[in-house]
């Protein structure tokens, strides 16, 4: 298939064997000498003033080292995108997840007992839990220092002339779509161990997807604590799942730091499952009003979207998800006239953060459900409708996204072929499709979208690769090793990838936006190219030839076709090291993709390339119970070049099943701000019996900017799942469900409503 030796091969995940033997060390398994255990006390109310706190009984408990409250948090220690959220709240609580006190004790049991002994009196305040109601004039204010619950963070863009296009449209449809809270459910819960050395330098073991940015947060925390010019070292143990949950620093990390400093002992905080559900952030819930129109031939003319986002009580990255929602809104299919207006509104609910797809699943649910409605109104087959409006390579979208490679048409073909294999239509059975666009070449969210890699060669022909990238199970370690091995003519086992320690790993902005393969991969490729150049240069002297006549392959450096001029790479390395005036082979490379921050008008080519995909699904709806059974699932993605098809399938399969949960079963149930299902029994993740076999056609469209042509694929798998399901249900039984998750209750209620009206 390819001319590559290592790239494109199904190489098992490098750390899979140690994981399968139970030897991998997760945060749960980290133990330091003298370590204490920290536990956090959360608010008992959604909105209340703290009127009294008495720690005396808890402090008197044997084995308790210290208890911290909001009073002990330095003024400048703040978290989140707005930096408005202290790790422990003082005077007032704004949601059930608000942290009010933290204990360090000799054992977890003592720490838990101490929490029970802390006495707090609250004066309960009225809460507001519905973002649309929170926008009303007489709504109670979540933050008294604001005039309105609407954040001063308007997301507003308008390209072309939507009103004019609407007038000209032959067909117009509109709808209201809502999505609710879902959460990552990493199997390994969150946790951190913080420890100070004698000179007050911090080492923190923590589950993070953003080691360098977390380091910055922790350095700021140290500064706020009055510890100037101290070091913060972030060590990542093996991460038990990420999916975006670890894209920000959390209160528990800051609390562990405060406790460890106060006690002068390492402090470990690890969440139990209910805490993981309650105190980590969810995917951003949305209310979307959408209107789209097309001409009589089905050409999409405009897209008009208003959105309300439940911001929760504090502002984290959830409030910025509209920046990514804009991508499908302006650029999924060709559409010249686009208007988008989103408001983030404070409520006393939990706050949201990044989760796989970062806003894209919510926006795509509305767009792609509504596209089917429009196709129906226009009397055009939904797949054909998408074909008419598909993006093309070379397109520049209204938001100035430059589409380089685009395999949307091939994805449509592949899905259609699979779905239409079994022809005849049974009662209650239907098919649905939905497409996606996602960033595939990094995403310039911060000022930089860069990643650094350092490569060091040893005497034995082995490469140590220090990357800023992060592996959390998705396989960045493999991708890095395969790219370096390919470039240097080594085997994958010759490459040791280090991604766990900020003391040795270079800077990076984190594992998000499906950017690791593209950005960290390009950084690794860049560094490897520099080593390769040195090897060829030094090898040419040893082999008495020119560098450009040499090749690296199978651990050898050689002139093709000339058996005399060949040498083992390790031997060459030893020669380089063990010579008078010798040298060492170390290289570094910082890759910052040529993409753009969005300007004030939100225009800017956010990513160097874009990934496309189409999902198709066949469902059977039980009309008596409303239960939806997924019969077939096809997920075609345009991936550039697959560096490792085995891992690629893993991302797609995993993403799709996560998407199926989002579509059909998952929901964090809140009653007046209180999480009612913080456990795996009541939060409905799919089991092996519920999951379906997924056919995943891989459309290769090698991208000139990707490492060996690759694009990112971490998130797309869960982006169009929900609308594909919703469209299939409509096809099967003629009811359109517009709120997620599409539970049997909703389907049955819609069916009964439909019967009533007929």
């Amino acid at each position: 298939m390819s001319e590559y030796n290592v790239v494109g091969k199904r190489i098992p995940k490098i750390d899979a064997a140690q994981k399968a033997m139970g030897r991998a060390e997760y945060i749960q398994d980290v133990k330091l000498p003298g370590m204490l255990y920290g536990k956090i006390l959360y608010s008992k109310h959604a909105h209340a003033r703290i009127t009294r706190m008495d720690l005396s009984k808890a402090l008197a408990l044997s084995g308790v080292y210290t208890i911290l409250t909001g009073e002990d948090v330095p003024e400048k220690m703040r978290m989140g995108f707005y930096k408005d959220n202290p790790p422990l709240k003082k005077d007032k609580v704004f949601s059930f997840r608000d942290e009010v006190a933290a204990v360090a004790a000799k054992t977890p049991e003592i720490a838990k007992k101490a929490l029970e002994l802390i006495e707090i009196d609250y004066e309960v305040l009225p809460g507001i839990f519905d973002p649309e109601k929170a926008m009303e004039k007489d709504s109670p204010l979540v933050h008294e220092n604001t005039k309105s619950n609407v954040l001063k963070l308007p997301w507003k863009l308008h390209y072309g002339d939507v009103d004019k296009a609407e007038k000209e449209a032959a067909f117009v449809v509109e709808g209201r779509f809502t999505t609710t809270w879902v959460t990552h459910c990493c199997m390994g819960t969150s946790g951190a161990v913080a420890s100070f050395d004698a000179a007050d330098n911090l080492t923190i073991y923590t589950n993070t997807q953003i080691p360098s940015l977390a380091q910055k947060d922790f350095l700021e925390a140290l500064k706020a604590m009055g510890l100037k010019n101290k070091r913060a070292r972030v060590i990542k143990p093996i991460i038990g799942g990420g999916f975006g949950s670890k894209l920000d620093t959390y209160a528990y990390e800051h609390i562990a730091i405060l406790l460890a400093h106060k006690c002068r002992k390492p402090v470990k905080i690890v969440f139990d499952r209910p805490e993981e559900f309650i105190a980590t952030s969810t995917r951003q819930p949305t209310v979307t009003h959408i209107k789209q129109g097309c001409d009589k031939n089905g050409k999409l003319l405009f897209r008009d979207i208003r959105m309300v986002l439940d911001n929760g009580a504090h502002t984290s990255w959830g409030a910025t998800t509209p920046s990514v929602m804009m991508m499908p809104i302006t650029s999924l299919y060709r559409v010249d006239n686009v208007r988008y207006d989103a408001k983030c509104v404070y409520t006393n609910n939990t706050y949201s953060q990044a989760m796989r797809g970062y806003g894209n699943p919510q926006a795509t649910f509305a767009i792609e459900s509504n596209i089917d409605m429009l196709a129906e109104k226009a009397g055009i087959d939904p797949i054909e409708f998408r074909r008419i409006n598909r993006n093309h390579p070379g397109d520049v979208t209204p938001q100035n996204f430059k589409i380089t490679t685009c395999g949307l048409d091939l994805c449509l073909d592949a899905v259609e072929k699979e779905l239409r294999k079994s022809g005849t239509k049974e009662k209650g059975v239907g098919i649905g499709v939905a497409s996606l666009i996602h960033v595939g070449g990094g995403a310039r969210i911060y000022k930089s979208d860069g990643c650094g890699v350092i490569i060091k060669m040893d005497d034995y022909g082995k490469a140590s690769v220090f990357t800023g990238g992060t592996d959390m199970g998705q396989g960045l370690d493999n991708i890095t090793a395969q790219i370096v091995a390919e470039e240097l003519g080594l085997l994958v086992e010759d490459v040791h990838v280090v991604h766990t320690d900020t003391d040795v790993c270079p800077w990076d902005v984190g594992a998000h936006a499906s950017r690791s393969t593209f950005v960290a991969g390009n950084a690794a490729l860049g560094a490897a190219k520099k080593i390769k150049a040195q090897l060829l240069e030094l090898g040419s002297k040893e082999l008495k030839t020119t560098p450009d006549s040499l090749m690296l392959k199978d651990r050898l450096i050689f002139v093709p076709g000339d058996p005399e001029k060949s040498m083992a790479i390790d031997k060459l390395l030893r020669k380089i090291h063990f010579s008078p005036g010798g040298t060492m082979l170390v290289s570094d490379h910082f890759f910052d993709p040529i993409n753009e921050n969005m300007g004030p008008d939100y225009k800017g080519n956010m990513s160097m390339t874009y990934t496309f995909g189409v999902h198709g699904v066949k469902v059977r709806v039980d009309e008596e119970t409303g239960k939806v059974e997924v019969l077939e699932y096809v997920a075609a993605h345009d991936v550039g070049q697959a560096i490792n098809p085995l891992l690629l399938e893993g991302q797609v399969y995993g993403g799709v099943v996560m998407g199926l949960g989002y579509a059909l079963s998952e929901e964090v149930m809140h009653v007046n701000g209180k999480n009612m299902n913080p456990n795996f029994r009541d939060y409905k993740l799919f089991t092996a019996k519920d999951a379906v076999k997924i056919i995943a056609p891989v459309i290769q469209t090698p991208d000139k900017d990707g490492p060996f042509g690759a694009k990112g694929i971490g998130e797309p798998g869960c982006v169009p799942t929900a609308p594909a399901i919703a469209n299939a249900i409509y096809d099967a039984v003629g009811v359109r469900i517009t709120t997620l998750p599409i539970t049997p209750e909703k389907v049955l209620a819609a069916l009964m409503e439909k019967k009533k009206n007929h």
Partner: protein
Amino acid sequence: MRLPQFDYKGPDTLEKALDLLSTHAQDAKILAGGTDLLVRMKKGLIAPKTIISLKALNELSYIKKDKNTIRIGARTCLADIIASDSVRKEATALSTACERVGAVTIQHFRGTIGGNILQDNRCFHYNQSAFHRSGRQACHKDGGKICYARDESDRCNSTCQSDGATALMALGAKLVLVSKGNERTVALTDFYTTDGIMPFAMEPTELLKEIIIPVEGGKSSYQRLAYRSAIDYPIVCAGVLLKASAKKDTIEDARIVVGAMGRAPLFLAKESSELKGKSFTDTKAFQKAGNGAMNSASTFAVHNVGSTLEYRCATVSEMVFRALQEAVAEASKA
């Protein structure tokens, strides 16, 4: 999550177990598989001083078949019941129900039939962590005076979500309860109280020893709805038993039970007797029975198992209908 502290007793005879129960009565809990009890203890819902484990009581693990009954020891694990040919053949509903409990990994020696019948009633508002519950007034089941599931209710409306109990009630099963020096047999239909705080009409000194299932040639079926195919409690379920006439074309006798709709499985006497004499092909009669089930169940059910009340009421009729159809199909085959 840590378990609270307790004393552990592991009696190796039934007699010793009953002795211990009579001494510790109020403060003791029986541990069979632990899938219900230990979870409740971890959540701080109960904190018994003494745990009396049935681990060593192999004498309570058996399936015995004689002419007119199947007798099952209370500590028999669900996997053994699922594997039993005689249960599958003559008490199909129970076999199916056991298969639906938890997952395969829970069905052998962690999950027992006694534990399944005696699993405590559940409620969305009650089965929460101690911290969750501490932020509000206690409900009836938690020692307080209010019900979060039904306003103004003077009692606990927690729901019995036992698959096994629903199937067994349909089969007309009886329970053998023993205490020191005493043994009594009670029909499962008479085993429930009217308050979810303590849903079972049994003394703290009593131990469930055996389940007796009459087998008189009837055909049974069990149907349930849950969100997932595994690790879920039913949100609505139904068990039926049908006896066919000699000609195998009409119903001679029927028992319809619905579950997960109230504090106990509900035997629908009226709907059951109305089916007598009905033809196997009389789907209208089955539908009527289903609707009757919906009407009866909807008076008891409250919104407390994570699915809407409207939905559970709307589907309970379908579960009854499907169970009847399946049982009829089996009966006409036989």
